[in-house]
């Protein structure tokens, strides 16, 4: 509310072409809703996001488990993975476009490279930070191998892994936007780019608002709830 008021007040003193007020943005949002382009863009972006995130979970999950369970694998891949983490995922886009052309596959490629490594690192770190006694106790009860991971190590590491999943979701979202904005057709990123090409500042701000809202709602509806229920279950609430 406060932000909206300040925004409305400030926009009175500036050229609306450069800095559109809330009324202009709201009407741009309404137009995009009415012609259906907003909805179809959100749907397309979300489909890419979910698919890319699911792939990242698979790739990151396997990588992370291998790192956690094999010291040799971790030492062999550790530097490469940290190095790749330092590379912003959008830098992979040219390579993705060369390999996969102007297609969804290129975007998925960028998303997976942007978020799977974070998942792998979170799983590896989470599994290594659990109390050693949890594992010793499980071994005396006869757990070993995959069962040990599935029933004890991963559940014990889950709070830390969840933080990684949350960050990876944000990374996936960013990679997607960067990709759509730069090259790939359709989606929210392109709607943003169209607004820029037309010099329609109101549309640009409207789409940015939608992106923020989507980010906030997934955060609150999914991750924050999961994390809170976990904290209650483990007795970590104050």
């Amino acid at each position: 509310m406060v932000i909206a008021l300040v925004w409305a007040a400030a926009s009175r003193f500036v050229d609306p072409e450069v800095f559109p007020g809330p009324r202009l943005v709201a009407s741009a949002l309404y137009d995009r809703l009415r012609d259906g382009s907003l909805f179809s863009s959100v749907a397309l972006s979300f489909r890419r996001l979910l698919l890319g995130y699911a792939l990242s979970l698979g790739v990151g999950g396997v990588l992370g488990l291998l790192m956690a369970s094999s010291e040799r694998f971790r030492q062999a891949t550790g530097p490469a993975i940290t190095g790749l983490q330092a590379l912003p995922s959008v830098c992979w886009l040219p390579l993705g476009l060369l390999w996969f052309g102007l297609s969804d596959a290129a975007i998925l490629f960028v998303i997976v490279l942007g978020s799977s490594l974070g998942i792998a690192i979170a799983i590896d770190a989470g599994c290594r930070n659990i109390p050693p006694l949890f594992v010793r106790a499980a071994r005396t009860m006869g757990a070993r191998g995959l069962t040990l991971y599935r029933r004890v190590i991963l559940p014990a590491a889950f709070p830390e892994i969840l933080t990684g999943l949350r960050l990876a979701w944000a990374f996936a979202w960013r990679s997607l936007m960067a990709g759509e904005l730069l090259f790939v057709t359709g989606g929210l990123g392109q709607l943003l780019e169209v607004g820029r090409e037309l010099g329609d500042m109101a549309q640009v701000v409207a789409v940015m608002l939608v992106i923020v809202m989507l980010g906030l709602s997934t955060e609150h509806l999914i991750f924050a709830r999961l994390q809170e229920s976990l904290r209650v279950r483990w007795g970590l609430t104050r």
Partner: protein
Amino acid sequence: MSGPVARGPISGASVSLRGVRKDFPSRGGVSTTLEAVDLEIKAGEFLCLLGPSGCGKSTLLNLIAGLDRPSGGAVLVNGGEVQGPGPDRTVMFQDPALYPWLSLRQNVAFPLELQGVAASEIGPRVERALRMVHLWRFADAPIHTLSGGMKQRGALARSLVSEPGTLLMDEPFAALDAQTRDVLYSELENVWLSTGKTVIFVTHNVREAVRLGDRIVVLATRPGRIRKVIEVDLPRPRADAERNVSLLSAVVMNELRDEIARVQREEADDAWEMGPPGGAGGHRFGMGGGL
């Protein structure tokens, strides 16, 4: 607490240690933590392993549990050599190690699920184990809502549910307050009396060893070896025999005094001044706590 419990039939396993040695790698070579330990533990016996820190009593327990392999000699349970951890030898640690993502009931069911016990059989067995430690009412409680003593009783239920022949306990009550500990002594004694299991109980607390054990094996340090075996010939249950427990504790304490002093000399800096034997030093290791 419930009244005296009748001694049930013996269901425990016998445990033999034959010339057991354990070396660990250390700075510039190997250090021997245990040396030539020979010990016969009868089926259904309550045996306490007593000694100051660093005497290898936990190492010995790990060898029997199968969490570790001896460097020499053999560990036999019911005549067969220990190859690894198994549901016939369950372990309780100083920390209850109940899993916070499971309820108490699920924690107790956990070892049975690992063993592939039929689902229809798990429910009743979990109930029986939880009733035995008087926690049935709290079966569905999240772990973090239980007190320290309740958690440790939960861990005892989880150890009992697989119906092991041998119960291995590594200072399970050391982190509890004195009152809770007294209650748990009685509960453990009753469980042991009624089930007839073999219990091997590691402690550094003399009074605890006298309160619970049929026999006390006193270990010496560096390298760890058996120094003395003491029969505890006090009637059971011993909850009412506090005076006798105290008297015998003083006797055992005397046995240990110079061993503690020796550990202290080795652990302390050169400049550190020794107190009177068994005085402040005794406290430092928690020896004779509660005397």
